[in-house]
């Protein structure tokens, strides 16, 4: 990728983020009810509602509020949560630590397993083991996360008593004080993601293994391990990079079900709560985080892909 292409790509990314922010703002504003109603509950009278709305600035016109948000953003200020009054960055930061830890632990399990099985199944395409592994991965992919989660909780935690069922009050870095709470959610997340990733690796390896350049280097007399490590794998991993980016993106933003099931207060459930509370600054903060994560990851994947393509490099 040339420098010009990178600049264009980053520019497009910024536009994507801006569009996402505007769309989320408008959609959240369209929801019935506002934070004042959520905060004061069912028995608030109009006087109380009016007082709280004035206090929270909910009376300002929508475009004014959006403008305030954007000017704040340009100063690096995401605003404060309407519900708790705490800075949005602080609110999101709490959940983000939980999510990053969960995602990181999941990747530690997922990456070796997915790549090892993908490469193995790619190189031994027609073996029985490959067929069995493939079937198992497909089965894991077909089980919804909450089903697998409940089965594991029921068997491993409730019946056998081997592992804690939920995070039970731990969040962020305090999870590390009792790492056992990470085991079940990591298993559920990894089980769901391993199929997609391993299949991409497998396809890539099959393709690269049978490509002309692989045959070519074999004919040159290079030993098989060298052929595989130096020539097949880089090409084989390439198609999996975009899938990996999507996986990481999903782990960082969309594991609402697993978070709820194991009582992990991460950004997924934080976002749902923010929408429920009609907490617009907080919702916007999350939307921005998710948009930036998606865009950055896909950018990185693009750049890495370009780096791994021998043909493209050669052609330049």
């Amino acid at each position, binding site marked *: 990728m040339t420098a010009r292409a990178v600049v264009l790509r980053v520019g497009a990314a910024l536009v994507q983020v801006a569009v996402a922010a505007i769309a989320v703002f408008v959609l959240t504003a369209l*929801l*019935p*009810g506002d934070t004042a*109603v*959520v*905060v*004061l*509950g*069912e*028995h*608030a*009278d*109009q*006087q*109380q509602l009016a*007082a*709280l709305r004035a206090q929270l600035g909910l009376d300002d016109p929508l475009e004014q509020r959006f403008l305030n948000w954007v000017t704040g953003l340009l100063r690096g200020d995401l605003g404060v949560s309407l*519900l*708790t009054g*705490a800075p949005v960055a602080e*609110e999101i930061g*709490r*959940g983000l630590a939980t999510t990053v830890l969960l995602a990181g632990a999941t990747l530690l399990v997922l990456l070796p397993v997915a790549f090892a099985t993908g490469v193995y199944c790619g190189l031994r395409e027609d073996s029985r083991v490959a067929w069995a592994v493939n079937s198992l991965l497909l089965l894991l992919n077909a089980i919804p996360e*909450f*089903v697998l989660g*409940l*089965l594991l*909780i*029921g*068997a491993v*935690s*409730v*019946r*056998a*008593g*081997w*592992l*804690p*069922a*939920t995070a*039970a*009050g731990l*969040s962020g870095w305090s999870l590390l004080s*009792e790492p056992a709470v990470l085991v079940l959610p990591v298993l559920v997340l990894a089980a769901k993601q391993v199929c997609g990733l391993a299949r991409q690796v497998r396809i890539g390896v099959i393709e690269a293994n049978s490509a002309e350049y692989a045959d070519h280097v074999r004919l040159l007399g290079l030993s098989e391990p060298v052929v595989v490590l130096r020539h097949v794998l880089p090409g084989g991993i390439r198609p999996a990079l975009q899938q990996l980016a999507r996986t990481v993106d999903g782990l960082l933003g969309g594991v609402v079900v697993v978070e*709820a*099931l*194991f*009582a992990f*207060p991460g950004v997924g*459930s934080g976002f*749902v*709560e923010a929408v*429920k*509370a*009609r907490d617009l600054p907080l919702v916007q903060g999350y939307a921005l985080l998710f948009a930036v994560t998606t865009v950055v990851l896909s950018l990185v994947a693009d750049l890495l892909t370009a780096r791994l393509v021998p043909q493209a490099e050669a052609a330049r």
Partner: protein
Amino acid sequence: MTTHRGLSRRSLLAAVGGLAALPMLSSCGSATGSTARLRTAFPVSGARESLDPHTSSLFVDQARAKALFDTLVAYADDMSVVPRLAESWEADPTGTRWRVRLRTARFHDGSPVTAEDVLYSYRRIADPATASPARWQFTDIDFAASRARSERELELVLHRPNFEFPVAWGAPATEIVPAGTTDFSAPVGSGPFRFVSFSPGAPAVLRRFDDYWDGPAGIEELEFVPINDESARVAALLSGQVHYAHDVSANSAQTLQRESRVRVLTAEGGTMQALALKVDRPPFRDPRVLRAVQLGIDREQLVEVVLAGQGVVGNDLFGNGLEHYPRDLPPRRRDPEQARDLLRQAGAEGLFFELLTSAADPYFEPASGLLAQQLSDIGLRVSPRVLSAETYFSDINDAGVAAHTRTAALPVVSFLRQRLRSDTASGNYTHYRSAEFDALLDKALATADPQQRGRLLAEAQLLARDRSGLVVWGFSDWNVAVSSELTGLRAAPPNSLDWARFDGVGFA
């Protein structure tokens, strides 16, 4: 989260629990590690995450407030008033001047609880700027005329007579805080537990207050663990991570009956389930159409099917079994024949209306389907419309003609004043405005003789029963589940003294 997914997850957990007849190997987790700390799991969804008792509206807020603070009085299971910080009280013959004597009690910082603290707290609650859900309870107080007669003697003066005024002193969000308190980040109260630590989104940890006036608590530490998902609360309880799981579904309660490790505490009929029909607009402005719905629904079937039998059949009155509830009334039975007749007379055969519902209560949506079916038998066409759960109870204040509603146990007098009086600010979902009802209620509150007052309150309720548009079909049970190693906990309806009260708890 959709109800569908919630239900299927719950039933799945039920299946897992039921299938595995394997012997339990052991229980695990940190809860059993230190028996001195009681760990309780509550949903905190939508919490403002403040320990200010006067703005609390969620059950977790109320439970934390109950541990940290005290109210002047509390409610027994039948919502009658029992003394707490107030030792005794009496009204003058007009019912406008109340003298309250406080017991000797101390705040966590060692200072005594005084009449000034009570006045400060009530003034703060009545201040619109505080935005307290209990504000309406104290708007009748004449604060200029009210005063502390001595350190432990208080005189509260009202703008109008109210011989049921002590009911207000036990309402949620009426806790007594030290005079002058504005910051609740490390609150000082007079309750059985002292503040140790709390940060939003994280557990609240409290420690026993040894000088508590009602005797020190049986446990050293109390922790409130936030777990929003119901199945996660149940799993945390079953795996020994927590000792107490708040708000357990009827489904889980049934499964848990088979578990020796836990006990389910069921407050029978703790929550009223009703239809609110707006009587200020067509079609229910016509009393014949209203009456037809009252006669057209099958309350027994609703309780049997929707509540899976875990509840009590309603009789179009709030507060089954509570103080002032008219007990000896014959049940309202289904009479489709007469209902059809009434609709014919009103020219409302084949009438169509929308029934507002939401996931705000697990029983609303299943009840909608069955109600629509029952009412189609008498020739009404009912179509459920689902509203957003978070703002549902505020939305149905004005929207539509028919809506599901529910109310947890509270004193009958509070219910009548807050939900059925014409001047009520919100929560009168049926828009019932009756000068006759208001006059009866006012007369009852201004009547000193308790028996006479009871008769007038019953009269007011019977009037509202026919006309208010509130069709009470049942009372759903209220479940919490606790570890079987706990002692000193019993089933108690929400808002009562013994509900979510942890100072009497011990470990077996």
